[in-house]
């Protein structure tokens, strides 16, 4: 269970305290970066996106309501930033993952991980987002709904559809267990 955000910290940060803002945002940077890496399949671009999102978070801090968890709020900003970047750079949905282990690696597990990774990267961005948030960042459905601004039921159905598309790769993984 994640600890509840300190309401005083949020209030202090909103009052303009630089240290409080950094304390608030610091634990959110890594999950945001991991999220952006999957959404963009480009670690360099993900770094840029997270930095830009941090600036936007600072500018929009007064929109963060007292008592609200800042993580879904910040991940929502990152998601929007990824979307903007995809639009401006004609990002490809067909771009697939880099191969781990370098040329010559033949491990079956690596190949199967790659199949699953490619299946996830081929999902539509909004489907990829819910899969990443729930299964990679381990966010509960309620937080995924908050990030993607939809109902929990909609997230559940979106996850179901995405898993259906990924099913062959997942079943292969299952068979390996």
């Amino acid at each position, binding site marked *: 269970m994640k600890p509840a955000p300190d309401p005083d910290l949020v209030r202090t940060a909103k009052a303009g305290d630089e240290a409080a803002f*950094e304390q608030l*945002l610091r634990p959110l*940077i*890594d999950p945001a*970066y*991991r999220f952006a*890496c*999957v959404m963009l*399949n480009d*670690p360099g671009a993900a*770094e840029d996106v*997270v*930095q*830009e999102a*941090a*600036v936007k978070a*600072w*500018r929009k801090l007064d929109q963060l309501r007292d008592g609200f968890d800042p993580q879904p709020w910040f991940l929502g900003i990152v998601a929007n930033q990824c*979307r903007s970047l995809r639009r401006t*750079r*004609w*990002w*490809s*949905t*067909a*771009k*697939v*993952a*880099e*191969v*781990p*282990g370098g*040329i*010559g*690696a*033949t491990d079956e597990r690596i*190949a199967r*991980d*790659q*199949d*699953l*990774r*490619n*299946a*996830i990267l*081929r999902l*539509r*961005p909004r489907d990829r987002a819910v899969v990443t948030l729930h*299964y*990679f960042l381990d966010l509960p459905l309620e937080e995924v709904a908050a990030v993607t601004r939809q109902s929990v039921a909609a997230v559940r159905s979106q996850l179901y*559809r995405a*898993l*259906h598309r990924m*099913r*062959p*790769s*997942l079943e*292969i*993984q299952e068979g390996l*267990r």
Partner: protein
Amino acid sequence: MIDDKSTRSAVHRALETLVRPVPELPAKAFQRVRAERGADAMSGWRRWSQAAGVLAAAALVAVVGIALHQAASERSRLGPAPTTSPNFVAPTSAAKGPGATIAWLDNLTGVDANGHIVGTIPASVALRSPDGNTLYALAHQKVEVYSATTGKLERTVSRTGSGDTAAVTPDGRYLAILGGNPQGVEVVDLLAGRSAAYAALTGPFSNDLKFVLVSADGSRIVAVGNFWQASAVAVLRFDGSTLRVERQAVSGQPGHRLPNCDGMAPQNAFGGLPERLLPDGATLVSFCPGDGLVSWVDLSRLTIAAQVRVQEQNPFWLSPVFSTGSMLYVHEPGTRRVTSVDLLKRTIVRSAVVNAKASTAMNPLRWLADTLFPPAIAGGIPRSAAVSPDGTVLFVTAVFGDGIGVLAVGVRDFHVIGQWKLDGGGSLWLSGDGQTVFVTNNGGDRLSILHLSAGTVVTVTPSMPAFDFLTIPN
């Protein structure tokens, strides 16, 4: 049944390699925030300009909102019956098989001309055979072969590699598969049910945007990798039992300049990428919606031999279609411009705006809404055009005065010879017999099926959102 815990564990393992640890990222981010904060403090006037910008943006949004509302109202006024073109005779073809009349959506659901779902394939991606009767799905160490008519699994064929991009030979016997680790091209004999040949490749062929093409006689295979940056091209020769690399090059190497496309491709791109080999097997043609460039690559020298640029206003609108002959048609739904390119003469033949015949009561602000919110999926392009089997008629999605629909256009003079209003205007697919047009809507939740001869329309709601179709290679 897939359980949540194992899914989570598999996803973690699969995605972890995409993340490059950056311990200094928080420091970099906060440094950036401090820099912005300092700049803002020094430039108080910027806040005023920002406020003005926000006001201007709000005004713009309001204007566009009105335009979108108008557009939505127009759509809601559409009646169930389309405007028919009673004299229109659709060119037909018997060259394809019965499975070619079934539309396969990008959610891998098959729908027949009456709107009945014939089946759903449990795969993440698939491609169609040239006769339209069969679907191939790449799975681990096997290729699954499905009937396009029923959606039933017919058989599995073993393969040794783990490539994930494929093309079928025109006779439907072999499947060329690119990618994998180690990377290479594998040829699978679909008739014999086994892997027939393999050739390793060096260079950027496994990652990023890639595709594989097969010549008309099946003897030449061309692999293209890293198409969104510095492209790599390999030319391979296949004689039925052995596969060997004849030559390969990466763009930028001395003497080699190759086209690229900054990653822009239709979603679910099997069979739909805007590239093809000319009938002689010696020339590769590519089209890039990002810059409108048509490029001819001399495969003996592996460099660009010629280029022409198609006029474009918004790259997200450009929907390229190769005809069964040696023609390329580019349709830009937002401007209604159609351009034809003769691939043998390497010239633009005709470029003109094609409108519905009775284009009245056009919303004057629609162009603004379309410009700011083009009807496309980011990173993808709606497939908004198709050519009749005999190559004489182009079907395109179109904006009418009070709705959207489909136009039939003669390819020689671009005259409109048929028009129908539909409840949709996303991607378009023409059945293999040339008699039925399937059109998705932009939300992916509606499929309109137009019977060209009768002028009737069936509308269905897919069980899962669908935005595009699996095309039949020609």
